[in-house]
């Protein structure tokens, strides 16, 4: 019999002993202090952000999460310390000699520690509760105070205690056990993280467990499985400890019982783990299968859905959907099988047509309907589909790579699930992505990689929601008095969202647009911030909208309504690299996370305090109403009407992070932007052949394609150059097939920028814009195909678009530009000084290209930022063609930045300083860019130049690195498929590595090679054939401006101060004092030349004059140097007169 009294006695005294230890007391006090500070800083401090406390359950969650990690570490120490004492000292023998079983003893011990730590958790939760009660804007989520300790603390403690006891018994050394366990904890926190879908995360540190005020946990079954694994394994370890405790068992038969219990619990824990893993694996398998099905039907001709009348009835999580679709066959052939996609979670009960039941087949998401006699070309047909089920979210976002789907979304440390749709008895959220109504054709597939542009269909929707719930969908709504709501959208839609939730509605009508906010009762945390705005709100709303429409877009809001709908924080639509459209925005609708969690523009409390502080600093010059006005404008403009750009590293809007989920860039563009309500949900140019065209137009309308005159002085290659090189090697569709989302986005941007600028160049910018905007207005809510658009464009301008698009298919060479050194002339006309720049530009590449020349001249603000005036010229130059250009200015240009846009040039953009103009008279002051006969020649007659990109260059790379270092280096290489690097003054590779920088020598690719200094076994060799014997000057190219940075010299005392090629006040020349060892060789002999980089020229440097026979001549450079690295660029032989 188990003696509970014994267990309790041991627990009581273990707890007492542990509680009195200084170690525990100090730990507890520290934990309380740290958590007090955390609560102060994260939740209570006046400037604390809104997001963490927007979800009330986050207060207990974050507290439990933090204390959980801390106590896992301490529990390990205490547990192993306890058993160590048991082993060494005789104190325990006094206890061991008592009539208590091993099971009672170990259980009592575990219980004692658990009680104590649970007490600590309770103390911390009480503290959190006090904070929670003080925070007037955050209600107490009582359930969370119970659930988090149960789900996080108890399984963690059980597991770590059990594991510590068991390991201590196995390893018999406290130190080893402690190190092993600390290592394990470290591994869990820093390496395992959320690997295997979070299965290895025994602390639940990364596991998504945010508790929504709308739906609670997103997936409580998975949480129970994941936590259950560790709870059961912990118990298994405790039984193992009992079984293997180094004390004679009270009775022999318990040995077997304990062993059995150990195996049973271990197997149960393992089974839960397997179930958990299997569940996720099934999701992955399902998704793969969905794609395979789509692949098989990707090319099948489809019927168009002209209209869809939907009736939805909610039964808890389950919904019944009746869909009456009118179909048209616009193909030239008859359709015997109609292909639809419908969520795999739905069962189709029946399909009826005009003549009764229609045969169909549903497999997963694929619905094949075989109407009798088929659908003839030009024919129409009405079908009614009866389906029911719980929509399966796995069908959504099949194109989004696993890495992106599994990336963590966290609020501080609280991990949030990412659900593409919500199916909760209290809240339903369905978007087109969830395939909740039948859509013609199949979705994402690996045959076409098509980003689907959906057809517009006419919808009606009637919804019977669950008790107490209200549905939200686009269109005019009427309730029939019996709990059924009918929605009639005024326009055809490309997507129909449906939300059913426990909403209250706030409404107002401004300028004929109805604005509704749907949110849960008591979730209005914002109205109180605008007590003085009730009269002016309408005006402010209209102003902000008008500003956006007139100033930013030149497009107009086409819907009658605008609904802001509160969603559970777990709702997460993904963005796509080929579009800036995120499903956060729907026709007539923008989803907002519950209580504004994650949106810093909704952090009114903090923003208002900042505003009030600034007002105090300005002697209270502004009224309450003015400050509220600013706050409201800030919210509207930055949340919905922002103009944040996408390309160029993460989403930023006017210097502020809007989406402040702390980990990972979840969105590269603002998902709440209203832009899709003006374009993506209103129009769309679909094309099987050129699927990216729509995205290019979208980016143009939203952001425009500004040609950036900026140039990176860091060297290496930029994201746009990387995209260029990818486009050189592959077509746009092949790039789509790769999973690198940044590359896809950049490639689309580069291509879009090229095409739109080329079209501007051909037809004129304002003409192009005028055409486009009228076209979109005329074709709103209709399907536009690329060929239709191109035909209309051709009719208007007599210009073809497809040749530019064809250029993006694979196997096309990119343009490459050579730009001659500009001739800079100062002259006069009757009005004053005139500056003329003459230059020659050749396109040596395989296709026509665009080149932009931006001239900067000091404006009224001088050279400072924003003080420069710029003038831009854009030329299209055909493959193999050369242009002679003369450009005329009335103020002196100082810098010319050449941007070759989409080209094979590295760098694609570079600057030329126009230092002093030559005064001479110019007869013709007309600007021109006329075709020239001869291409740009970068070299002077008679000179022989060998660059590192030329055939005459070769190198020998020998690495003496250890295997580990080689492995690390090779991993670095693998991560970077495109191999021009940035020179790093602190670290140089051990083998010759290509680097790029505009200061380096090169025709279209300005690059060099760099290697770490060594014993001289790494050599670079430039060789050429001398046609004439004689004396030649040998020059070597030292790209000084590319070699700036901190002092890189190892073992060099000098090198401080102003460097040889460095600019005053800028970074210094990093290689000053380095001596390069060259060998100049011919069949007449070799000569060693030492060249010290004391004050080298930024460019060609004379090595010496040598005699060469009419035979092979070569120059060799080794990496044997006193400096840290050697750069090999180009060598020039200049015949001596």
């Amino acid at each position, binding site marked *: 019999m188990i003696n509970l009294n014994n267990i309790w*006695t041991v627990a009581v005294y273990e707890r007492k002993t542990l509680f009195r230890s200084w170690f525990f007391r100090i730990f507890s006090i520290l934990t309380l202090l740290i958590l007090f500070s955390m609560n102060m800083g994260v939740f209570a401090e006046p400037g604390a952000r809104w997001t963490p406390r927007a979800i009330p359950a986050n207060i207990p969650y974050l507290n439990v999460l933090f204390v959980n990690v801390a106590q896992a570490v301490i529990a390990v120490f205490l547990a192993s310390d306890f058993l160590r004492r048991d082993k060494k000292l005789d*104190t325990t*023998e*006094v*206890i061991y*000699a008592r009539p*208590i079983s091993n099971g009672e003893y170990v259980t009592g011990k575990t219980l004692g520690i658990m009680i104590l730590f649970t007490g600590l958790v309770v103390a911390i939760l009480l503290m959190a509760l006090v904070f929670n009660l003080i925070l007037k804007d955050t209600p107490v989520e009582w359930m969370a105070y119970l659930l988090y300790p149960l789900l996080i603390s108890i399984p963690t403690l059980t597991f770590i205690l059990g594991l510590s006891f068991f390991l201590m018994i196995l390893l018999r050394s406290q130190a080893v056990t402690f190190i092993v366990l600390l290592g394990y904890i470290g591994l869990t926190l820093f390496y395992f993280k959320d690997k295997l879908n979070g299965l290895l995360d025994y602390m639940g540190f990364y596991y998504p467990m945010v508790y929504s005020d709308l739906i609670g946990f997103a997936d409580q079954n998975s949480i129970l499985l994941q936590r259950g694994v560790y709870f059961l394994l912990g118990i298994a370890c405790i039984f193992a400890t009992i079984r293997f405790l180094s004390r*004679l068992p*009270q009775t022999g038969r318990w040995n077997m019982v304990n062993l059995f219990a150990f195996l049973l619990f271990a197997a149960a824990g393992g089974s839960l783990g397997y179930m958990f893993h299997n569940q996720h694996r099934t999701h992955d398998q399902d998704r793969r299968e969905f794609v395979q099905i789509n692949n098989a039907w990707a090319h099948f001709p489809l019927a168009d859905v002209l209209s869809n009348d939907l009736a939805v009835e909610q039964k808890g999580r389950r919904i019944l959907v009746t869909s009456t679709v009118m179909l048209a066959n616009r193909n030239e052939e008859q359709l015997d099988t109609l292909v639809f996609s419908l969520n795999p979670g739905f069962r189709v009960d029946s399909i009826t047509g005009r003549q009764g039941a229609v045969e169909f087949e549903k497999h997963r998401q694929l619905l094949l309907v075989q109407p009798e006699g088929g659908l003839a070309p030009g024919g129409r047909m009405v079908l009614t589909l009866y389906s029911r089920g719980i929509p399966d979210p796995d069908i959504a976002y099949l194109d989004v790579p696993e890495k992106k789907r599994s990336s963590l979304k966290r609020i501080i440390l609280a991990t949030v699930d990412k659900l593409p749709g919500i199916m909760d008895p209290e809240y339903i959220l369905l978007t087109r992505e969830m395939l909740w109504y039948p859509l013609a054709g199949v979705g994402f597939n690996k045959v076409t990689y098509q980003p689907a542009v959906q057809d517009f269909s006419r919808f009606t929707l009637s919804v019977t929601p669950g008790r107490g719930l209200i549905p939200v969908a686009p269109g005019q709504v009427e309730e029939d008095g019996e709990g059924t709501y009918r929605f009639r959208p005024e326009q055809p839609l490309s997507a129909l969202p449906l939300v059913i939730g426990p909403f209250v509605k706030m409404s107002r009508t401004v300028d004929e647009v109805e604005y509704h906010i749907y949110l849960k009762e008591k979730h209005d945390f914002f109205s109180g911030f605008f007590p003085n705005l009730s009269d002016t709100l309408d005006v402010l709303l209209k102003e902000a909208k008008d500003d956006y429409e007139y100033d930013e877009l030149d497009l107009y809001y086409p819907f009658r309504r605008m609904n802001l709908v509160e969603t559970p924080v777990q709702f997460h639509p993904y963005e796509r690299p080929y579009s800036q459209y995120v499903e956060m925005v729907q026709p007539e609708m923008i989803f907002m996370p519950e209580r504004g969690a994650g949106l810093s523009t909704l952090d009114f409390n903090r923003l208002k305090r900042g505003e009030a502080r600034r007002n105090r600093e300005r002697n209270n010059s502004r009224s309450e109403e003015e400050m509220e006005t600013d706050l409201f404008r800030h919210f509207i403009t930055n949340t919905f009407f922002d103009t944040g750009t996408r390309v160029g590293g993460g989403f930023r809007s006017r210097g502020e992070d809007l989406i402040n989920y702390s980990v990972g860039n979840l969105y590269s563009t603002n998902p709440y932007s209203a832009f899709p309500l003006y374009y993506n949900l209103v129009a769309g140019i679909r094309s099987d052949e050129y699927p990216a065209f729509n995205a290019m137009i979208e980016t143009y309308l939203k952001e425009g394609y500004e040609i950036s005159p900026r140039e990176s002085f860091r060297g290496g290659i930029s994201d746009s150059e990387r995209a260029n090189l990818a486009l050189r090697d592959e077509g746009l569709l092949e790039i789509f097939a790769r999973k690198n989302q940044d590359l896809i986005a950049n490639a689309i941007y580069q291509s879009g920028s090229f095409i739109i600028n080329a079209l501007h160049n051909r037809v004129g910018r304002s003409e192009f814009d005028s055409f486009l905007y009228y076209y979109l207005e005329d074709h709103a809510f209709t399907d536009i195909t690329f060929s239709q658009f191109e035909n209309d464009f051709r009719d208007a301008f007599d210009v073809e678009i497809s040749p530019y698009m064809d250029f993006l298919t694979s196997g096309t060479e990119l343009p490459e530009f050579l730009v001659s050194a500009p001739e800079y002339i100062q002259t006069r006309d009757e009005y004053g000084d005139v500056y003329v720049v003459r230059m020659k530009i050749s396109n040596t590449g395989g296709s026509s290209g665009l080149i932009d020349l931006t001239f900067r001249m000091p404006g009224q603000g001088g050279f400072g930022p924003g003080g420069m005036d710029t003038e831009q010229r854009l030329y299209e130059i055909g493959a193999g063609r050369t242009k002679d250009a003369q450009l005329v200015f009335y103020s002196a240009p100082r810098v010319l930045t050449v941007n070759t846009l989409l080209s094979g040039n590295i760098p694609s953009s570079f600057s030329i300083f126009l230092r002093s103009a030559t005064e001479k008279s110019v007869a013709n002051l007309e600007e021109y860019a006329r075709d020239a006969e001869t291409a740009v020649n970068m070299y002077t007659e008679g000179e022989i130049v060998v660059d590192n990109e030329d055939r005459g260059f070769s190198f020998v790379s020998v690495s003496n690195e250890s295997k580990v270092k080689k492995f690390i280096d090779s991993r670095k290489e693998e991560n970077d498929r495109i191999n021009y690097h940035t020179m790093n003054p602190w670290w140089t590779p051990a083998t010759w590595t290509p680097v790029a920088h505009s200061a380096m020598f090169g025709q279209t690719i300005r690059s060099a090679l760099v290697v770490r200094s060594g014993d001289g076994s790494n050599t670079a060799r430039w060789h050429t054939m001398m046609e004439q014997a004689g004396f030649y000057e040998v020059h070597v190219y030292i790209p000084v401006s590319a070699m700036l940075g901190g002092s890189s010299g190892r073992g060099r005392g000098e090198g401080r101060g102003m460097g040889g090629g460095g600019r005053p006040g800028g970074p210094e020349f990093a290689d000053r004092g380095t001596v390069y060892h060259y060998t100049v060789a011919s069949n007449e002999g070799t000569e060693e030349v030492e060249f010290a980089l004391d004050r080298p020229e930024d460019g060609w440097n004379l090595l010496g004059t040598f005699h060469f026979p009419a035979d092979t001549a070569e120059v060799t450079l080794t990496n044997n140097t006193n400096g840290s690295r050697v750069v090999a660029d180009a060598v020039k032989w200049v015949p001596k007169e």
Partner: protein
Amino acid sequence: MEIRISNLEKTYPGGFKALNNINLTIGNGMFGLLGPNGAGKSTLMRILVTLMQHTSGEVTIDGMDINTHRREVRRMVGYLPQDFRFFTRLRSWEFLDYTARLGGMNNKKERHARIDEMLTSVGLYEFRNRMANKLSGGMKRRLGIAQALIASPRIIIVDEPTTGLDPEERIRFRNLLSDLGRSDTIIILSTHIVGDISSTCNQMALLNEGELVYRGTPDELVERTRGCVWSAEVTQEQYDQLKDVYPVISTIPSGAGWEIQFVGEKPAHIDAREVPPNLEHAYVHYMENNFKHWDL
């Protein structure tokens, strides 16, 4: 009550034989277990209190095999280990409460009364709230015996209880045990201090190198040594010669030389007088002669 030990052997995993063919019967009263360090006393004790498994042989208590009736044995036994330290963060009375509860004293009132009684009898009542690790060495020993006795065990096993105690503490301790020894209780006292046994035990055994070399009463053992203990006055030179041959028990400076006591055959060339033996003499005699003899 009777403890019967038959053919008991204990071999440690390394092959070291700690106990070899021990046969012993222990009845009520005080039983002394004497032997040098490493003789196997603690091993025997740990086997008796079920902390260690013997390799072969049998131990029964009132006919119950201790291997198969551990719970019953543990209920009967009060144990004070040799090198006894306490949980550092428990008060004296808490420690007694802990062991009393584990000993099966579930009635709180009775338990508390018993704790007070034990604390009084070991003279620690006024220190009942002192942390156990703050007690002096003697107090700790007394607290140790208190915890062994708290649940009124029928077998009390104390391992080297007087080591490190001052004479006063030691006498007090012996008296405490003697008082208990009069009841229906077996008290096994393991020690290498002969005085502990001579003053308290009516039965004893001698262990050496894992083997039982004597069992009987202390008086019998003393009687066997009669005629072998001598006292003499010797010069320094004589003393140097003598101590190489005889175990010298005491050496007191006297006049020009030493007044010494030694154990062995009477030496021919020295004027020695016979002294009546005590247990200490007997132990030394046994150690020096019988054991060596046995070994041979």
